[in-house]
């Protein structure tokens, strides 16, 4: 529900006396309290849900067939968004990188920097963000609508655990599909840079390829996919958590989708920082 100018209460009686203390409290204090208490609350509820889902995995009381279906749809639906965004991203790095290396007359280094940034950082993050926006949001929307229409209750009444049936396959599908898409994104991102460097700026094909693997190795490809898997698991848990717990009719479904995207992007960026320090911190410094 939108707040805004149409405040409830005395909104009609024109803003004659402005309650300065109240305003200050509202502006300064309440976000502060919310900033401290909100995240702790949210994290607590999220980890409880996550634990419940992950503990259901080894019981094997979940449908493998559903997992395959979900993984298939997820790949089909997210493939184009991921590739369509990482490619121009690679191209942008090409354009800007050319501008930077122009300053040093070191064009040949472009592909080194490009593959480093794409594979270590951008591909996993971008793939996960796009999957969150496309797949995660649709998981939240589906589960939310099922919750609102009491379909999840119906599943439970039939003696089927809705977590095992609806949630676990989706979470696992995410954890499985995001690394795949990340690996694809690595290729598409570098290709985007290649098109700019070789196609637009006439860099030599051989130079580009030769320097590509200068800064990175097979470890980085693995680390990239590993990041993807972690992000996928996170997005899977967040989206099903918001959808599964949706309340309050159609608005509730909208809120679930909104929360999924916001939380996913936040978690991805924060966790990415940790993972980068963990995986590449030693080699970088």
């Amino acid at each position, binding site marked *: *529900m*939108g707040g*805004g*100018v149409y405040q409830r209460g005395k909104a009609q009686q024109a803003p004659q006396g402005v309650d300065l203390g109240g305003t200050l409290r509202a502006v300064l204090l309440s*976000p502060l309290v919310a*900033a401290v208490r909100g995240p702790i609350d949210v994290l607590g509820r999220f980890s409880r849900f996550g634990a419940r889902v992950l503990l259901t995995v080894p019981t094997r009381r979940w449908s493998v067939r559903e997992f395959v279906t979900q993984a298939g749809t997820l790949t089909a639906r997210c493939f184009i*968004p991921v590739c*369509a*965004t990482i490619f*121009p*991203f690679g191209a*942008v790095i090409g*354009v*800007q990188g050319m*501008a*930077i290396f122009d300053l040093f007359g070191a064009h040949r*280094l472009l592909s*080194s920097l490009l593959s*480093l*940034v794409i594979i*270590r*950082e951008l591909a996993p993050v*971008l793939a996960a963000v*796009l999957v969150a*926006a*496309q797949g995660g*949001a*649709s998981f*939240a*929307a*589906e589960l*939310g*609508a099922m919750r609102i*229409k009491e379909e999840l209750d119906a599943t439970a009444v039939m003696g089927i655990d809705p977590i095992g049936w609806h949630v676990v396959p989706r979470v696992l599908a995410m954890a499985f599909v995001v690394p795949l898409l990340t690996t694809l994104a690595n290729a598409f991102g570098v290709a985007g840079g290649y098109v700019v460097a070789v196609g637009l700026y006439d860099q030599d094909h051989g130079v580009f390829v030769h320097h590509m693997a200068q*800064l990175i190795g097979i470890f980085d490809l693995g680390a990239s996919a590993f990041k993807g898997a972690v992000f996928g698991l996170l997005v899977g848990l967040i989206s099903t958590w918001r959808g599964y717990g949706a309340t309050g*009719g*159609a*608005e*509730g*479904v*909208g*809120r*679930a*989708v*909104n929360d999924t*995207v*916001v939380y996913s*992007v*936040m978690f991805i*960026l*924060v966790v*990415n*920082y940790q993972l*980068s*320090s963990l995986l*590449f*911190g030693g*080699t*970088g*410094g």
Partner: protein
Amino acid sequence: MSALAAGVRKVGAYAWFTVDCVRATVTHGVPWDRVMSESYKVGIRSFPVLFTMALFVGSNLAIQGHAAFSTLGGGNLVGMFVALAGVREVCPLLAATMVAAKAGTEMAAQLAVMRTKEQIDAIEVMAIDPRSELVAPSIIAVMLTLPALTVLTIAVSLISSMLVAVYQLGVDRGEYLSFLVGYLTAYDLFAATAKSVVFGLIIATVSGYFGFFSERGARGVGQATNRAVVTMCIVIITLNFALTSILYG
């Protein structure tokens, strides 16, 4: 081919919707009270999230820039990397993506709910144009607030990257600053702001389009929100390439 035709029709419908919003605003006037409330929603409520993200992204920029350049024998070039990559590309995109994720999806969901609950019909029956009443204010609001948020994002990420570069990576502060200031131009700030104005238009109109024409019901609301956020992400990133080519190509 029919998928392509459907896609083209969608883009056409979206373009018409945008034109309609502008036309409705011209003929019916702008409800400035709604512009204010929308700006508040977009600006103030996206800021905490954006602030946190800018901290992390800024430090990550420093770490990656350092990693890349130290192998090439120039760890102190990190200031330049942050100035160029961060200000030109990462910060405008980060601000736009976060606002799209938070405010954009919220607008799409709210419009879809209003469609479901016949509130948009109610506005029309009152002889008020729902586009000028509901969509136009958010267009203005996002186009005004996103540039401001982008500038704030730039400031926060520059500070956080400097802290990481100096205290974690051991880069000399004077050297960092001289490279930062040396490579950062007013044109970069102008370009970042210009980009974010365009992104703002995209966020408000795309989320408005999907919310406004959503199907009724819980499923419809979810679907509209989902489509809005994916489309926003793809269009913003693709457009970023075009804008970079125009501004720096």
